[in-house]
């Protein structure tokens, strides 16, 4: 968590070096600062004024710094608690409800800044009845009488801190272009994946990697690479629809994806039926997991997920065949299941699916580095335009991306 307080200092603070002393004190004690406002007196008599945001990594250090600079005239600005209004009915926020961004947010409750949990864009903030904790809540889940933050007073959004790692994620280049070299981006993702796997194996929180992907991964030939990435514990959570698992298992059962010979690339007679037969088979068995455990499905992405215990959330759409058992057809419920899988994610790869990329982007806090990979430049652009500015856009074929990534990590096809 990130701690900050705004202090105001005024008077003849420049020539007396009082401002310099206050700033030196903040830095020497291990804090950082930003100027929110500086006014320098134009004459010797006219006083100067500075409004400074003091930032620290712990509440204790913040209090120590404020204590140390207070005798030099830096006083904490008095701020008000946030306004709370009871929800008028189930599923309805009060008017003027505060709509969240995907940036870390704090609300002031009983004179204390409290971190809002479960940060995600486009939600409301519910405060517990005791008024001590705050958590985001989707509109549909609000219950009549819930205390919802309204207005903007007593709410503050913490700007994204530049990450310490000097890689592609620290620059947040949302600029998307097919003409730019992508080698360094893949290289930086590789480094992150290696670090995160080490963290994951040590049980470190925030070390899980999420991949949200579409069936093009299978059609284009990225299935083996992704399977390897899951088997090698580089990917721990998979978000997809009905098609990705259907075609993945179709390859295993029939050697085709959407009827095309997976290796030869030719249309196979009656191949268009293969995915339906696959879905039907799995429905008969009862679950993908049972199909893998019983040996019916031996290879591929879903088999790797079952073997490795990777979490899979399958969200259905209106064009789905079947669907496969386990596909969530209620979109509100699907959203909730995806949301529940977000905590602990340290990197998100959004590959070859407009729908799942945007849906996942909506759920991710800005603090989670994300990459959006698509052959169509419009997809990463759309994601950035919808607010997920932290996502690095990569215009690239899904299979090429996954194969290159896996190869850099040691995959030998």
């Amino acid at each position, binding site marked *: 968590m990130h701690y900050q307080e705004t202090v105001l200092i005024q*008077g003849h603070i420049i020539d*007396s070096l009082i401002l310099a002393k206050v700033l030196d004190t903040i830095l020497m004690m291990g804090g950082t600062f930003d100027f929110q406002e500086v006014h320098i007196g134009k004459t010797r008599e006219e006083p100067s004024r500075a409004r400074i945001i003091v930032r620290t990594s712990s509440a204790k250090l913040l209090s120590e710094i404020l204590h140390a600079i207070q005798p030099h005239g830096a006083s904490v600005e008095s701020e008000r608690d946030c306004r709370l209004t009871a929800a008028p009915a189930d599923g309805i926020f009060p008017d003027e409800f505060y709509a969240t961004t995907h940036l870390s947010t704090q609300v002031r409750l009983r004179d204390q800044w409290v971190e809002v949990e479960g940060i995600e864009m486009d939600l409301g903030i519910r405060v517990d009845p005791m008024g001590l904790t705050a958590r985001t809540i989707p509109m549909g889940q609000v219950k009549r009488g819930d205390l919802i933050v309204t207005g903007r007073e007593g709410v503050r959004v913490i700007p994204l801190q530049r990450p310490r790692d000097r890689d592609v994620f620290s620059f947040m280049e949302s600029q998307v272009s097919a003409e730019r070299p992508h080698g360094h981006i893949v290289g930086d993702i590789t480094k992150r994946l290696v670090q995160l796997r080490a963290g994951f194996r040590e049980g470190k929180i925030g070390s899980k990697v999420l991949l949200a992907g579409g069936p093009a991964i299978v059609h284009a030939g990225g299935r083996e690479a992704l399977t390897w990435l899951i088997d090698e514990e580089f990917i721990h959570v998979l978000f997809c629809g009905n098609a990705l698992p259907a075609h993945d298992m179709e390859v295993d059962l029939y050697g085709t994806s959407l009827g095309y010979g997976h290796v030869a690339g030719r249309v196979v007679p009656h191949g268009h039926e293969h995915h339906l037969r696959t879905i039907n088979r799995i429905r008969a068995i009862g679950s993908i997991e049972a199909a893998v455990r019983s040996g019916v499905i031996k290879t591929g992405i879903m088999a790797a997920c079952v073997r490795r215990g990777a979490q899979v959330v399958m969200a259905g759409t209106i064009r789905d065949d079947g669907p496969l058992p386990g596909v969530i057809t209620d979109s509100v419920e699907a959203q909730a299941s995806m949301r529940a899988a977000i905590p602990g994610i340290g990197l998100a790869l959004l590959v070859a699916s407009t729908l799942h990329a945007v849906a996942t982007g909506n759920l991710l806090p800005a603090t989670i580095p994300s990459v959006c990979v698509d052959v169509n430049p419009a997809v990463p652009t759309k994601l950035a335009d919808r607010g997920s500015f932290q996502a690095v856009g990569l215009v690239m074929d899904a299979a090429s991306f996954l194969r290159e990534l896996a190869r850099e990590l040691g995959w030998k096809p």
Partner: protein
Amino acid sequence: MEAMSRLLVCPPDFFGIEYEINPWMRRSNAVNSDHAVRQWHHLMRVLEKDVGVVLERMKPVPGLPDLVFTANAGVVMGRKAVPSRFRYAERQKEEAYFEDWFRTHGYDVFTLEEGLVFEGAGDLLGFPDGWFGGYRQRSDIRAFSILSEWFTREILPLELVDSRFYHLDTCLCPLSGGELLYYPAAFDRYGQAAIAERITPERRLAVPEDEAMKFACNAVCVGKQVVLPAGCPHTGQLLEARGYCLHPVPLDEFMKSGGSAKCLTLALD
């Protein structure tokens, strides 16, 4: 803050050490009242006869031993007066008497909000165009931004880092010729740099520690006349070299309480 011509003083009828609120005060180190009265009258004679100032005498009050230190009554410029708000409860009882004196003598009295401590001319000294404010020991730095607005003067706050020099007038004394008598170690490096930025090296007169401990900086300067505690030969030489006329006065009874010549006076005009 013009050269002093009229000073507020208070006879030491009830002066003594009845509490300990600075490192100089020891209740066991009792004041010899006869000596104190004699020293005070000697100082007054020098101020009136040798320096030629007019003295305004306040009525001493039983139970207020430090009322004698009128430098802490408040600060005065022209017809405006700001009475002190003392840090310690022991001296807070003096506030009403000082404020009353200002009011009955026709000053426009500006009062600081309660709790914002400021100990008057003890912590606010300077030259006609810019003042220094001592903070951290007795005065709150936030008082100076208010005072600078009321008096339309620049006030550069200086942190007092040595508790023996608990008021600015114990370690800094502006002189009428633009020189500054001061004890540098009473300030941190920021304060020393701020002083150096304002006062050229040849006008900065640094007092040695042993004389600073005798309150050499607690001097009264009116024109070319300087009244200072006796026993500060080095400081005397510094002043004489710049053409000042010295009037050393023994004030050791008042030093037992942490005060000397300047603390015993308040410039009124």
